[in-house]
């Protein structure tokens, strides 16, 4: 895994890029730059995690990708097209964005209307809005609370409503800004399973998170930001094999990967990303039960 400097970095399978940043820089209020000369290319259909310490520029980069922020320098291309000058509402047809705080999004008197809001904004026909809304309600198990105000639902359900409203648009690119913050394990798994289904259907996923277990389990590639610069890009396995780089960016691999690395003297490869992968490798190292007898 090469440390990223100024040149473009390709992640994911070798197909057309869904998102491409070319030498993008951004600063808020002309103060310290939030992003400096970031170049990367995210291939269509890939699941990429965007990681880095607080204030490293992750959310800024994500907001550049849907046009909420415009780079001071450089270009942002979505499916090969420069989005400079394109309104956010138009980019929203391609890019679904899930914000960290669901309460920033929820306002409608019912869950159903909340989901319909995105579709109405994008000008879908009435019949299609109704069909897609009912489908989203069913998929996310929200049919029973479809006529309740989303604001009074529990946090986990509010999160599901926000994802349902984004996915009802069927965007080809999905950006998730720390979607699992504050969620229990069950809600996290449910949310990620819904995202996984979209990914399996060809959706490109860019996931911002501090949860390295989630990164290890779900993402095939990682972009690592540190102090506004892209310092590494490549496969998840390669990133977790670079302890010095991770430490510099205040990131620690998931416990199972660290355990695997600690057991290298015992013959482990040290690159297990999940408990299942670790267990398979560990069992293979164990002597046959017959030998013990």
């Amino acid at each position, binding site marked *: 895994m090469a440390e990223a400097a100024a040149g473009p970095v390709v992640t994911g399978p070798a197909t057309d890029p869904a998102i491409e940043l070319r030498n993008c820089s951004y600063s808020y209020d002309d103060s310290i730059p939030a992003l400096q000369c970031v170049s990367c290319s995210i291939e269509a259909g890939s699941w990429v995690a965007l990681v880095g310490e607080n204030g490293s520029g992750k959310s800024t980069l994500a*907001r550049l990708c*849907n046009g*909420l922020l415009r780079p001071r320098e450089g270009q942002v291309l979505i499916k090969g097209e420069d989005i400079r000058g394109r*309104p*956010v*509402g138009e980019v*929203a*047809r391609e*890019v*679904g*964005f899930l*914000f960290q*705080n669901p*309460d*920033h*999004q*929820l*306002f*409608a008197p019912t869950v159903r209307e909340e989901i319909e*809001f*995105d579709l109405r*904004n*994008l000008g879908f026909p009435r019949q299609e809005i109704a069909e897609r809304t009912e489908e989203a309600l069913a998929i996310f198990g929200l049919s029973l609370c479809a006529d309740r105000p989303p*604001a009074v639902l529990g946090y986990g359900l509010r999160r599901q409503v926000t994802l349902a*409203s*984004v996915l009802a*648009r069927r965007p080809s690119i999905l950006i998730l800004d720390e979607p699992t913050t504050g969620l229990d394990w069950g809600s996290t798994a449910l949310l990620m399973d819904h995202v996984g289904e979209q990914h399996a259907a060809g959706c490109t996923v860019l996931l911002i998170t501090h949860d390295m277990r989630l990164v290890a389990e779900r993402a095939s590639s990682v972009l690592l930001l540190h102090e506004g610069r892209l310092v590494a890009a490549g496969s998840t396995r390669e990133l977790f094999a670079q302890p010095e780089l991770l430490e510099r960016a205040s990131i620690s691999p998931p416990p199972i990967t660290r355990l695997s690395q600690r057991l290298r003297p015992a013959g482990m490869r040290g690159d297990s990303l999940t408990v299942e992968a670790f267990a398979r490798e560990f069992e293979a190292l164990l002597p046959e039960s017959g030998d013990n007898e």
Partner: protein
Amino acid sequence: MSARFNPYVPRKTWLHELDPRTKMAFVGASFVLLLPANHLTLVLGYLAGVHVLLWQARIPGRRISWLWRQMAPVSLLILLLWPLSNPGGTPVLIDWWRIQITLPGVTQGLLAALRVNGLAFAVFTLLLTTDQSALVQGLVRLGLPFEWGLTLAIGLRYLPLLRGMYGGIVDAQRARGWTPEQEGLVRRLRAYGPTLVALVIGALRLTDTLTFALAARGFRPGEPRTTHRPLRLRAIDWVCLVGLGLLTGGLLIFEVGWR
């Protein structure tokens, strides 16, 4: 400054070190002086004096120009409407159809606009040189109930937070294809519903959390309070207060005598 909600500029100047009550007295005296002021020279002199004070307090020029810019629409409105609604006097500058604009009307409009700016600068001299806790403490010492003062302090502190929350809400709705700028004026106003409802819900959640947090930290309304830095009128405050009284009284006599 771009609509920042805490205009305080921390500095170590004599104006910053003054007791907030002295600066409140200055605001009060400014109102007493400016509201009846009927002479352009007096109002211009007042504005020049306030700018000298702000320069002494080392307030950056961009903050001062920001306030002028904020006041510009109101000033312009007064400048336009005053001569139209007060067409008396001579010489007549414009006489067309039913519209008559005279020089006294224009002068009075200019005076009213400068007066409003003077009042704004008086309040901002207080806000630019007094931190929020001292401001609230000063009000409490002047008789405002502590709970009201605390509410005001929390309100002031939470304004930037609410502003940030509103920014987040607007971003979230834009990312969903919400484009109010493409609508006409009436529909655009209605289109702001989603952001305002989300803001109210967010603010209510915040209030709820804050109430629990205050209770969890032992706050009980009605309990006698102490302060970390009690306010004290020093010699310089008394000098300023006496000087302010004399100056205001003298200028009022001058104003009445001039008439």
